[in-house]
């Protein structure tokens, strides 16, 4: 593969720009049976909270046109178990690990971020301020620019690691939000989390999800995610991890052209566990076909007029 696919975001070197998204790859054990995690560009963990978190009442899934709703609700075994059992194992593959941090209060975010930072096992933090599936915390921060800024600044102050902030596509003014996040000290942005959404079972006239509302992911939201990345790239200089409905290497390339320095494969993992590596290969073939020496040349290319038009 050589250096064609090598890249870096916020100083974190990666052998290729393809990550797996938080919450869509467990903490790796399940999918390590299907692919070698060491072949990934990087791994983003499932959200970690301070205490073990039971998650939301089932049902937690519902399929929608070209998408799915989930209301997992941050189910995880808490920071302690994560630091003891998950992170050391994940760190063993020699690829950078972003630890996704969530909380139900500012203090919790700060504490988790600090302890992850101190552990020395993670490459970066991804601050989940946009989870649509928890009533307290989560999306609340994303809804208010002021709250988000304060939270990010507080975490920034305590945590050494490069800090990525994960935003919701349901942000009225995405550019202003990105500028504010960069100003508060974010080293990078993860765009996007799921889109808040819901479905109702008309035979029962009751919500499909036990938690009533959930987050929409999958191909349905891809054009929304591309715009978020596009707008972020226009407004800030920090790197962007693009995610949302990536369903093949073409979608990954599209995200990169919109401005993403790396991409995350999410829901697609459920359907095709080998997809991240096939996407890596697809990007490489595309670069070769277009005669490009490095994937980094693609980043934001659509903002720079794209490829020259062929003479007709």
């Amino acid at each position: 593969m050589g250096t064609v696919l090598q890249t870096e975001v916020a100083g974190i070197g990666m052998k290729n720009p393809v990550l797996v998204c938080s919450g869509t790859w467990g903490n790796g054990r399940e999918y390590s049976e299907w692919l070698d995690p060491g072949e990934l560009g990087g791994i983003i963990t499932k959200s970690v909270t301070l205490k073990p978190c039971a998650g939301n009442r089932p049902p937690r899934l519902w399929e929608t046109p070209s998408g799915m709703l989930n209301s997992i609700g941050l189910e995880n075994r808490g920071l302690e178990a994560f630091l003891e059992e998950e992170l050391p194992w994940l760190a063993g593959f020699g690829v950078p690990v972003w630890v996704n941090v969530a909380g139900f209060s500012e203090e919790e975010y700060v504490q988790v971020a600090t302890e992850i930072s101190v552990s020395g096992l993670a490459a970066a933090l991804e601050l989940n301020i946009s989870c649509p599936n928890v009533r307290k915390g989560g999306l609340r921060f994303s809804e208010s620019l002021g709250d988000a800024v304060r939270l990010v600044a507080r975490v920034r102050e305590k945590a050494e690691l490069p800090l990525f902030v994960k935003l919701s596509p349901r942000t009225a003014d995405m550019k202003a939000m990105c500028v504010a996040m960069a100003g508060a000290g974010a080293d990078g942005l993860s765009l996007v989390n799921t889109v808040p959404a819901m479905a109702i079972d008309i035979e029962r006239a009751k919500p499909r999800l036990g938690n009533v509302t959930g987050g929409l992911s999958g191909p349905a939201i891809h054009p929304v995610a591309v715009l978020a990345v596009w707008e972020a790239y226009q407004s800030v200089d920090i790197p962007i991890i693009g995610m949302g409905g990536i369903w093949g290497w073409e979608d990954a390339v599209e995200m990169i052209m919109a401005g993403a320095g790396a991409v995350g494969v999410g829901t697609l993992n459920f359907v095709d566990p080998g997809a991240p590596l096939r996407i890596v290969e697809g990007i490489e073939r595309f670069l070769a076909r277009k005669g490009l020496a490095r994937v980094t040349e693609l980043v934001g290319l659509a903002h720079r007029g794209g490829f020259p038009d062929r003479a007709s």
Partner: protein
Amino acid sequence: MPAGYTATIAERNSFGCSVELVLETPRGFEASPGQFVHVLCGGDGRILRRPFSVSVSHNGGLALLVRPVGEGSRWLCSREVGEELDFLGPLGRGFNINETRENVLIAGGAGIAPLRFLAMEMRKRGLRTLLCWGMDGGEDFGRLPDIIAEESGLYVSTRDGKRGFRGSVLELLDALEVDRNAAFYACGPREMLADLVRGLGDGELERTQVSVEERMACGVGACRGCAVPSARPGAPYLTACREGPVFFAHELDWERM
């Protein structure tokens, strides 16, 4: 070992309201009863795979029994011999076979799929096995009951008595006066399982295994989407796809099911 497979449809049998697909996998395939495969189905704008129990597994091949209830299963039922299917599996935890007691297998509707496999396996091992199949919803499975009756012996019940015993499959169990010291294995609609469990005494819960259905995304334990309420205080939910789909009845919190 779970894996990704491309299988060829070698045979397609229509059994009344359901379709049996016999699949051949080039690399061979081995599963234990209760495990399932996660099948990529077509259908407009559907993205997730669909879980189906392994209903026969032999000579490196397998069979699925599919009831068309929605777009994905309908698509599957309309496949033809020679077409290819893409599936992951075998996945999940299957039945734990009790070698010492009498084994009573209780199927509801399409819940027969894994229990047919289980009964064949028990018979192979020479275990005392009683297989009961209730078609409480009035379904018609064509010749399938006859085939299974020949394979492993079978008691059938229907609500209207059209076939076999008249009544629910649980009433059939009562009528058969089955040994209450038996081990129980059940698969069927959520309400049937709940009714069964409600009727069980303390010691019996630990001898009863149920295969539960829950909507799934990943099928491998990664997404936590198929959560079922656990009876253990510390771990509120179990995953149907990885810790199940087969559970001992006492592992689940039936109040919250």
